C-alpha cells in the first residue's frame, strides 16, 4: 500500500477518529511522585469517533469550550499523537509516522509558545528554517520579502526578539512558522493576548496566505472575531465529540437567537407591563435585567412582532435592537452544553 497516494485528494480525512488518554487518578495528586507513578491510570476519552473531511484550501475554524478536544485534534493532525481508533490521513500521509515529507507539508503555530530565540533577531531563525526545511534560496528570498511586506515587519526582523513587543513577536513567529510554505497550517490561538491592530494584521495575513497559496488552514481560537472573519467552515467540539460542522451563518441560524432586544423602562410602573408582553411572545425565554434595562434574546424573524407589541407602551420605554455577535452565540451555546467534565 502506498502511503502517500492514499487520501491525497483532500487535505484531511478522518474516519471514526478517536483518542483516549490515560490519566493518573486525581486522588494521588500532590502526593509523592512515586505514588503517582504507581497509581492505576484511568482512561479518559479525549476525542470520540470523529469523521471529518477537509478539502484542499479550506479555512476551517475549530472551536469548543476548554477540554472539548481541540488541542487533541491539533496534536493528532500534526502527528504528535497516535489515534486510538479510526483512521487519519493528512495531505495523504499518516501523521503519526512523522515522515520528513509530512513535516515539510505542515506548520504548527501556537500563540502561547514561541520557537524564536530570545537573544537573536528573527532573521537568524529564518536562516535556520531555510536550512532545516531545505528551502531553495530563490524561493526563500522571495517568500521572505513577501512575508516582511505582508506582516509589516520591515526592520523588525533584525531586532533581537527580546526587544520586540508581543504583537511584533507574534508576527515574526508566524513568518518563521510559514517560511517553508506548508500546505496545511495548524494554528492554535495565534492572536492570543494581542492588541486589536496586531490581531487584524495577522488575520489579514492568514487570509492572504490561504487565498494566494491555496493552503488549508485549521484555526483554533477563542477569539470569535478571528473565526468569523477567516473561516468559511466551523467545526464545534464538545467533550470530545463533533457537535457541529457547517458554515458560520448556518450555525447562527441553527442557534436561533441572533438578535438582542433591550428595553429601557423610564417609568417604573410600566415594568410589569413590559414583562407581561415579553412573556407572552416567548414564554420560555428568560429576560435578563441589567442596568435598569430588560434584555431579551430573540430570533431575527420575531423581532418585528415583539417591537409591535411593545409599541403601544409608547413614550415610557426605549427599545433598541442589536445583532448578537458570534461570540455571544457561541458563549450561549457553550453555557447550554454545560461545563465540561475536566
Amino acid at each position, binding site marked *: 500500500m502506498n502511503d502517500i497516494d492514499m487520501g491525497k485528494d483532500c487535505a484531511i480525512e478522518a474516519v471514526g477518529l478517536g483518542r483516549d488518554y490515560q490519566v493518573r487518578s486525581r486522588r494521588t495528586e500532590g502526593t509523592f511522585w512515586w505514588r503517582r*507513578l504507581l497509581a492505576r491510570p484511568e482512561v479518559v476519552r479525549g476525542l470520540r469517533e470523529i469523521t471529518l473531511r477537509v478539502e484542499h484550501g479550506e479555512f476551517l475554524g475549530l472551536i469548543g469550550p476548554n477540554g472539548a478536544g481541540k488541542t487533541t485534534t491539533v*496534536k493528532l493532525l500534526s502527528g*504528535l499523537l497516535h489515534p486510538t481508533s479510526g483512521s487519519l490521513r493528512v495531505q495523504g500521509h499518516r501523521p503519526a509516522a512523522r515522515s520528513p515529507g509530512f513535516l515539510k507539508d505542515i506548520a504548527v503555530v501556537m500563540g502561547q509558545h514561541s520557537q524564536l530565540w530570545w*537573544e*537573536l533577531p528573527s532573521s537568524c531563525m529564518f536562516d535556520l528554517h531555510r536550512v*532545516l526545511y531545505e528551502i531553495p534560496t530563490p524561493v526563500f528570498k522571495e517568500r521572505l520579502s513577501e512575508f516582511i511586506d505582508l506582516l509589516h515587519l520591515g526592520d523588525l526582523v533584525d531586532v533581537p526578539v527580546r526587544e520586540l513587543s508581543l504583537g511584533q513577536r507574534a508576527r515574526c513567529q508566524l513568518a518563521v512558522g510559514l517560511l517553508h510554505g506548508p500546505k496545511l497550517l495548524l494554528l492554535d490561538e495565534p492572536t492570543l493576548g494581542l492588541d486589536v491592530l496586531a490581531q487584524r494584521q495577522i488575520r489579514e495575513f492568514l487570509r492572504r496566505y490561504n487565498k494566494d497559496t491555496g493552503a488549508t488552514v485549521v484555526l483554533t481560537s477563542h477569539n470569535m472575531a478571528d473565526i468569523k472573519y477567516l473561516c468559511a467552515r466551523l467545526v464545534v467540539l464538545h467533550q470530545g465529540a463533533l457537535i457541529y460542522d457547517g458554515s458560520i451563518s448556518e450555525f447562527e441560524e441553527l442557534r436561533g437567537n441572533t438578535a438582542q432586544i433591550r428595553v429601557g423602562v423610564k417609568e417604573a410602573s410600566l415594568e410589569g407591563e413590559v414583562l407581561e408582553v415579553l412573556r407572552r411572545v416567548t414564554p420560555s425565554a428568560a429576560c435578563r435585567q441589567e442596568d435598569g434595562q430588560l434584555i431579551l434574546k430573540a430570533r431575527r424573524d420575531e423581532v418585528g412582532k415583539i417591537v409591535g407589541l411593545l409599541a403601544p407602551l409608547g413614550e415610557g420605554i426605549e427599545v433598541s435592537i442589536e445583532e448578537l455577535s458570534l461570540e455571544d452565540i457561541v458563549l450561549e451555546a457553550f453555557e447550554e452544553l454545560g461545563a465540561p467534565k475536566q
Partner: protein
Amino acid sequence: MMAKYAAVFQLQLRATRVYRLNWVFSILCVIVPLLGLLLFWRAVYSASPGSQLRGYTIRDMMTYYLIARLVGDAVSAEWWEIGQNIRDGKLHLFVIRPIGYVGYYFARMLGTNVPSLIVTLGMFTPIIVGLAALDMLSVASGWSLLLFVPSLIAAVVLGFLIGMASQLTAFWTGEMQGMESLRRVLTGVLMGAYFPLDLLGPGLRSIASYLPFYYQLYFPTELLIGKRTMPQVGLGLAIQALWIVLLVLLVRTLWSRGMRRYQSVGG
C-alpha cells in the same frame, strides 16, 4: 543532514556571543573563589612544607583546581529548558520540525561550551603562566598530554548525555527542581568538581571510578596532571567509551519511551 546541525551550532555561537559581557563577569565569579581555594590549600600545605596529601603535592593541588575548572566549563550541559518544554507542552513545536530533538540540543551544547572553553582558557592564561613561573604547575608530558584530547572530547559527550538523560526524566516526574538540584550537588562531588577524588581514599575513589560522572571531569583532569599510569589511562578511556555507549542507549530509550508516554497522557 549534518548541515542542519551545523546551522544550529552556528546559531548558538551567535546567541552565546550576545552574552559575552555576562561571561566575563561569570568567569570573574569563578576566578575569585578559585583564588580563595588556592590560598586555602597553600595554607594547608604550609603546615609541613613538601608534604603530600594522598599523593597530591601542593603543585598537583593547584593544577587540579585550574584544570578541573577548565574541563568543567567544557563538559557542563544543564539545559533546564528541555524539562520545561516537556512539562509545558512546547515540545510540540520542536518535534514537528525536521531535525532530531536530542541532536538539536547537542549542537546547541557545542555552540555554548566550545566558545566558553576558549574564553575561560584565555582568561586563565595569566594565572597559568604565573603559576608556571612560580613552578607551581604540574602537567603531564608526552602521551598523557596527547590522550587528554580524546578524553576531554569523550567527557564533553558524556556530560551532555548525563544532562540530557536527567532532563528527559521530566516525562515521568513532572516538576522536581529540588531533586534535580540534589542530583547536581551529588554528581558534582562524584565527578570531582569540589576536590580531587583521591582525597576520599582508595576505596571510595575506586567506587566512584565505576560511575559515569568520574569520567565526565575527574578522569581527564587527573590524566592531564599525570596522576595515572599508562595502563590506567587506557582502561579509563575504554570505560569512558563504554559509558558513552550505555548512555546513548539510555537517552534513546528515555526519549522513545518518554514520547510514548507523552503521547498517551496528552492534554
